[in-house]
């Protein structure tokens, strides 16, 4: 594996290898030493969690980080092409982690430089490290990825994370419940892909009917900026609010996940229940990103 650009490039075997390494690094990070290695974070748009999670992952394995955050005051503002900026970064570092608002930017950079490139989000296209940390989180909380019942809740139309997760889980024969307002339902091309793969799913607008039968509830934020019409947003914004009361008869192993930041879709009274797992999920991101960095830098045994 030279780069990590898209989940489409990863075989199931490769995914399982990364999951195994993440688990092993969580137990013992000292097995990998990235000292004198430099990670260049090229962030063309703001991101707190992803960037800091990568920095933490690199530093905890003994590596160093240089960062470009936003384009203000950089050579990009002077009109430098993405290819040139990336080629310079490649002279300063051993691995590039990049986020860019344009779709396909990371793939393009990976063709321009000789060092490994990790896609930390390219517009609405891919965010493979999020998908992998979600898989790791599900595996860790359930002990297996096989045959789980999952509810994906909230904005299923525009939510890149839920689209990617649906594909990433497909090889493990999940059963999906897609829970959303009608106007934010899972896009048809994804439903038709799932049918082709023989994946079981149901679409519903009612969360309370299925909450007691699922293993994972993956909640996403309904984003105001997605709605051209303010009135439409007001209609659906509070459609699904997860409370401790809603979860009172959930299965013992059920976990609530959320890519964060949350606004109001999960009540804070859920945080202290055994179902809350979104902060663990964020922490798992560090272990998964350690596994990715170690693998791409050729240090994974």
């Amino acid at each position, binding site marked *: 594996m030279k780069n990590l650009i*898209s989940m*489409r490039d990863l075989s199931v075997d490769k995914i399982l290898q990364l999951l195994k390494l993440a688990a092993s690094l969580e137990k013992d990070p000292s097995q990998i030493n990235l000292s004198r290695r430099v990670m260049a974070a090229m962030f063309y748009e703001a991101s707190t969690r992803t960037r800091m999670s990568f920095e933490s992952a690199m530093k905890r394995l003994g590596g160093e980080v240089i960062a470009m955050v936003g384009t203000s005051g950089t050579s990009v503002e002077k009109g430098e*092409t*993405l*290819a040139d900026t990336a080629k310079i970064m490649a002279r300063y570092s051993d691995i590039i982690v990049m986020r*860019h*608002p*344009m*779709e*396909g*930017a990371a*793939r*393009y950079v990976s063709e321009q430089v000789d060092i490994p490139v990790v896609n930390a989000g*390219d*517009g*609405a*296209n*891919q965010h493979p490290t999020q998908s992998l940390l979600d898989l790791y989180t599900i595996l860790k909380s359930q002990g297996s990825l096989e045959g789980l019942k999952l509810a994906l809740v909230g904005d299923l139309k525009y939510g890149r994370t839920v689209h990617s997760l649906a594909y990433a889980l497909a090889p493990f024969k999940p059963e999906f419940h897609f829970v959303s307002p009608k106007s934010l339902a899972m896009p048809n*091309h994804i439903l038709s892909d799932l049918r082709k793969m023989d994946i079981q799913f149901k679409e519903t607008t009612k969360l309370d009917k299925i909450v007691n039968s699922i293993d994972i509830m993956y909640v996403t934020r309904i984003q105001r900026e997605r709605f051209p019409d303010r009135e439409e947003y007001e209609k659906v914004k509070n459609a699904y609010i997860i409370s401790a009361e809603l979860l009172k008869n959930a299965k013992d192993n059920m976990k609530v996940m959320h890519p964060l930041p949350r606004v109001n879709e999960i009540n804070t009274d859920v945080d202290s229940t055994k179902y809350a797992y979104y902060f663990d999920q964020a922490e798992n991101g560090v272990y998964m990103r350690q596994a990715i960095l170690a693998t791409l830098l050729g240090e994974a045994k």
Partner: protein
Amino acid sequence: MKVLKVDAIRNGTVIDHIPAGRVQRVMAILKPRSTDVVMMGMNFPSKAMKKKDIIKIEGRELTQNEVNSIALIAPHAKVSIIRDFQVAQKSTVQIPERIEGLVVCPNPKCITNAEPMMTIFNLEDSSSRELACQYCERVFTADEMAHV
């Protein structure tokens, strides 16, 4: 008697059944050499297409690869190789497995529309005529791409 609106050619290539209005885009892809004698016909009446465009290139036989490169713009084009005023070979166009640098990605958020770089499309499904952008990963039908 059939009246020819453009001269018949002795040797070369005739591309017929180009959708009306697209002849210049086809020419842009075929990039004629400065020595090529080229006739372009626009808005010819056609039974099947109502109106069509035609190209005749004197003295040059296009290869199947060159011909296939126009498949997105002129999917139903008929290509004839002419030798000594006779049709020596007839073929249709097929969308190639990989199309480099010929068409614009219809996704405005695609990096290919922001950087000075070449587009690359890979054929996903030849029966539904769908292509995927190598960069933004979006899948488009050939017809969607031809209109950009």
